[in-house]
């Protein structure tokens, strides 16, 4: 197994878990909307995961970059820029006093992220298989 395949495998795991995370966010936000959770609890729960998410995603981007896999790196670039931008303007965390105002926006972001990570998941799966098959073909 080459580094390339390992990178794709890593991508597979990370994008899979991030898909689940995004869906979980959407569920939490809908819970807030239907009053199953209060905004203070919601925000403290979600905020604990904001930095790990960004960290995982940027780590994956670095791995692709180091491996010289330009297409998956390019694919992840917009989200990375968006995350950095959010960090720079200090709006990455959920604020319980403002969460209702931004609720539609947060949900939209959640759905876009979920779709994006799911797409990535299948792309990485494809990438990994192709890499592995190519490796095997090369061996034969």
């Amino acid at each position, binding site marked *: 197994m080459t580094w390339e395949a390992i990178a794709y495998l890593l991508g597979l795991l990370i994008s899979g878990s991030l898909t689940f995370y995004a869906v979980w966010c959407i569920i939490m936000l809908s819970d807030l909307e239907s*009053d199953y959770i*209060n*905004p203070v609890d919601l925000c403290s729960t979600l905020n604990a995961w904001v930095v790990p998410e960004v960290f995982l995603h940027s780590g994956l981007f670095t791995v692709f970059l180091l491996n010289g896999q330009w297409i998956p790196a390019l694919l992840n670039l917009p989200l990375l820029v968006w995350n950095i931008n959010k960090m720079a303007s200090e709006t990455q965390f959920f*604020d*319980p*006093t403002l969460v*209702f105002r931004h609720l539609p926006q947060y949900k939209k972001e959640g759905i876009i992220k979920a779709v994006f990570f799911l797409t990535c998941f299948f792309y990485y799966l494809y990438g990994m298989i192709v890499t592995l098959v190519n490796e095997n073909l090369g061996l034969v």
Partner: protein
Amino acid sequence: MSGSTSGHGARRRLYPEQITSAYTQPNAQAGAPPLPSSAGYPPNAAPSQITQAPQFFVPGEAPAAPVPNPGHQRSPASPGYAAQDPMASLSNQFGNMGFSGAHNAGAASALLAGPPEIWTLEQPLPPVVLPPQTAATPHYVPCDGKHMRSTLNCVPNSASLLKKSKLLFGITFTPFKTDDEGESPLPVVHDIVRCRRCRTYLNPYVRFTDGGYKWLCNLCNLKNEVPAFFDYDAYQQVPVDRFQRPELSHSVVEYVAPAQYMSRPPQPPVYVFIIDVSHDAVKNGSIGVMAQAILESLDRIPNTDGRAMVCFITVDSALHFYSLTPEGTEPQMLVVPDLDDPFLPYPNQLLVNLSECRPAIDALLSRLGEMFLGTTATGFALGPALQSAKRLIQHIGGKIIVCHSALPNIKAGALKNREDVKAAGTAKESDLLKPADPFYSSFIQQVLGLQITVDFFVFASGYVDLASLAPLARTSGGSIYMYPGFLSTRPEDVNQVMSEMKRFLSRDNGWEAVFRIRASPGIRFPAYYGHHFLRSTDLLALPNVSPDHCYAADVALENDLAGPVAFFQSALLYTSSNGERRIRVATLALPIVSQVRDLFRGIDQVAVAALLAKKAADRVLSAKLEDARKAVEFKTVDMLNVDRAELGLINGTLGQIPVPRSLNLLPLLTLGILKGDALRSATGVHHPSDLRTAALAQVLTLPPEILQTYLLAKFYPLHELSPEAGLPSDQAPNLTQLPPPLNLSSEKLARHGVFLLYSVTEQYVWMGRDAHPNLLRDLFSVGSYNELTSGPLRLPQLDTDISRRVHAILARLAALTRHAFAPTLQLVKEDAPAQLRSQFHAHLVEDKNMNMMSYQQFLGFIREKMQ
């Protein structure tokens, strides 16, 4: 008048037919109050002449009662108008067309051209006309606009109708309003009856069915059982009349809540005072004044059952706590210099019972002013003080009252002076209105849910970064009082602080409150405005609810509304100061209409302007100042740009804007919003961001009836008061009548005149050079103009007619705000210093001032945008 009686063929003279046809429509609105006949004010003349002026409009005397008048058949060319003296022909035409009849037809119109008819602001609103039998009993008291006020007194039946009308639909609530003078207290109910499904409280609009055994919920139409005690008193064993029950005969009632409505025993009133004793505060003398004000209000703090608790923390570069004990009369000061992790020395002697420790508290407060005279510490550690206060009261909740003069500048929550004069008028200015330090937002998140409110009394002469501190008050339901440039050596400053502080401490607060609005199915509230924390989509958490605070909500329609009437019910669950859990419920019923012209007939433009201002203030805090200003302008133009054919509006001549009669003052109110301290453009004129933040808090919290005066000041000529002004009216003997207001224009200022201007937080007397010596003698007890100097004015109580009346007017104006504000009366002479004059002229919104448009220019701007 000739224009309207001849030449029916010309396009611009079409309106007589339209008006005539409007008359004959069967659904002409019953009950619109007759309007005054003339736009004219009497010419400057001696008071004796005014008594004879018949065309003078007097709000109190106008047939204000909404008399049903369906058979109103007055001719458009009524002879009374034809005899008018030749004024500006435009406004004459306008007066005739607007007033003489068209307002009784479907959509009356006004042509905006001349000066705005500011006196129509005082007129009673068109009444809410509900279909007969809407209420269970005919003799019920409908909801007063001071409790709940809608921008439209009817509800569109679909979202598309609302969208088509382009109107702003929202509701303002003052859930904890204190009783005004002469108002009877709210009826109290002991048994709570609610709908099983939607939890609506029983109200006058429910219907009884099944022989009176069931009641039909007016919101969700569910049949509920009528409890037995409605008809039979089990204690006295007598039948009772259910329609005598207060909740069926009053739209606003107060329920005593049983234990199910408590998550813990009701909390006692708790007041923690954080007092800045750094060098700045010593210099301006605010410590002594605050201590004196608190000392004098100790007896008035709501404490009927002796449970109120107080704590004092003074702060400079260290925290000072005061150990107070019931035995000792000597308070012990405990200094905690460790600000990184401040500990609480003797935690159970810091927060103490007010009644028990009264001698020690008295001793502390009477000495507090002198204790720090020698202080040279310039640090002010607000952050650690807030954290300590929070730790002291986190198991109870209560009020933290911060009185400070300095910028918090050390340790946690230290702020920098980021005021930038060059930022005025640029995009950077909006950043100055946003919080700078994350400490305060994390502190907010810690206190949410702990039932803690933070209030601010700011005595700063310089910058205190109120923008970073204000969110504490905003999310916890607190108030902000600001005294820029306060000096204890000026008696007028001291008076203002003393009376506002005393009223603040003595007012009845609601503790640990939550507020919820329910409405008929299909109605939704997408956004709320005001000082609150939104705990779920429809539940406002108010750790403390102030009687002066108003909340507003946008109203959106999700699907088409069924039925003839829509209902709104607000419920405030709170703990009263004497430890009772209570629910204050208000129910508002509005008819559902399907025509745009019916909607336009029901506009309450003051409420529209209030909501517009609150939305703009909210926008400033989340987006940019310029965006908020643009949004206000856009919405105003949008609302005025109606489908004229649909509403049957008359076409004006060139330069006139035909608008529905019910929106005739909207451009002026909008101009008031744009020129107010909250949204004013600072291009060229520096406007400190602290003042703007304080003004934004006022706009967000003032109820519409007060906000109206905050936006458009009341302006009265004292040298020619109308004969009944300042005297009690016939209908309400304990209510002083106010004179008709003047247009807010410097054209009205006359050299021989003396004028009064009142704008809630400021009040002025303007005096011309040639003011009549008799008036000066009778009002100020001076012989000539030169004996008075510009600046704070103490109006003497003289035994003259005019003096008594002016004092009565001032007292009535102060009562409008329920004495929450006690601004200093400033005398502005014609030759006053430029700064004072510009402060005064800033309130004359019809003028071109502060690099902003005059009223006429603004009309031109609207006309341009409408095309």
